């Protein structure tokens, strides 16, 4: 298959989403291989103050280790990292996380663009970024960066998204490498390993 050829070097997967993305994560995470050879970094928009809920919720759904990102922490394979609310998550060249309390981007903090973009520079051609359901265009510019640095772009098929706007905007503004239904996502991710 062409895709496994393309992506056997995957060193990180970043998933971004907003409205309607939690349901996708709850369906995809249980089907992920427990021995993924790369970190899965999740950036979803949510209300400030609901911090510890999301890691707890998601860790019940997978045998992978799930944790909220701590600043200066090293991204490790086989671990699911959740970006904390009300901070931007950035990825450093040495694959550690930095947190940043600067202005909102696209009315959002965390902004998916910020993590996609810094991730693109850190992982270059060995990064896969996936944009899920959502109602604004956060993440679209980030996907352009991923593309420019040689990484791979994936969107949830807008037809299957609770809120199609976010992945639809991505498809409109750049040439996306893979458009996946929710059913196909876990297999796709497991194949990257």
């Amino acid at each position, binding site marked *: 298959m062409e895709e496994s050829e393309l992506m056997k070097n995957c060193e990180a997967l970043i998933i971004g989403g907003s409205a309607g993305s939690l349901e996708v994560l709850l369906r995809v995470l249980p089907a992920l291989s427990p021995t993924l050879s790369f970190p899965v970094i999740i950036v979803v928009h949510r209300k400030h103050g609901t911090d510890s809920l999301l890691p707890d919720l998601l860790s019940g759904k997978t045998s992978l280790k799930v944790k909220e990102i701590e600043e200066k922490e090293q991204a490790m394979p086989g671990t699911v990292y959740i970006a904390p609310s009300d901070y931007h998550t950035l990825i*450093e060249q040495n694959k550690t996380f*930095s947190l940043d*309390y*600067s202005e909102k981007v696209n009315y959002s903090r965390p902004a998916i663009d910020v993590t996609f973009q810094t991730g693109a520079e850190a992982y270059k051609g060995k990064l896969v970024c996936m944009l899920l359901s959502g109602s604004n265009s956060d993440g679209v510019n980030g996907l352009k960066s991923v*593309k420019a640095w040689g990484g791979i772009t994936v969107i949830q098929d807008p037809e299957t998204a609770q809120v199609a706007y976010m992945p639809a905007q991505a498809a409109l503004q750049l040439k996306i490498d893979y458009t996946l239904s929710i059913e196909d996502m876990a297999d796709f991710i497991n194949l990257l390993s």
Partner: protein
Amino acid sequence: MYSEVSLINDEQVDILLADLLDHYGYDFTGYSRASLKRRIIRLYSLDKALSFAEFRYQINNDPVYFKRFVEQITVNVTEMFRDPAFFKTLRDVVLPKLGTYPFIRIWLAGCSTGEEAYSISIILKELNLLHKSLIYATDLNPVVLEKAAQSMFALSQMKQYSENYIASGGQLDFSSYYTANYSLAKFDEELKRKIIFSTHNLVSDHTFNEFQLILCRNVLIYFDRDLQHKVLQLFDESLEPLGYLALGSKETIDFSPLSKNYKRVPAEKIWRKVS
């Protein structure tokens, strides 16, 4: 605002950081690079710089632009009573303990435009401790300190700040602390009387007093681990025995050998120096 491939590359960032150190004595080399680079690119694109050479020349030769550069690459986003639960712990646990001292010295490091300094001043006043307290509010950036000293904040923020204030245990009418003046809320002079705004650079300046409470929230996240170590050392030297150190909600002293001398106040990022 976003470019697909960076407008400024890592080598160029290194050049700018070396310039800042040479020309102005500002050392940003220990800052978290991804964040710093993003800020520099943001400014480059905001100010529509024509080329890297021109951008660099302006920073090095135009003192007004240099000031803008420093203000813009450091993060100055802050609010009053941000993280209300934290301020509730200050109000209910930490400050009443310090209230038994004859005199309370507080250092707010990285105070930015002053919102937290006024928040602390309000709590001290309500606890009847303001008259015997002194808040040293410092920042590396003189521009934000000038703003802070004006004690004026956007009126549009007051609804949020009032909610934060109430959630942090405040029981008065928050609007009694300011007078509305067009689009600005001017805070009472009394709140400012016990605040000293002053420049201090955590990277290069030394300890200047002993304190019973040091607050430095959402500053260490912008530093790499080595610089974080160094700054925690500085705080440790500046903190009296049994004094408190308060950090931002995602910051910790756990990685530092100093942490063995500190005991955490439950549920908040506040540590007490116990030995």
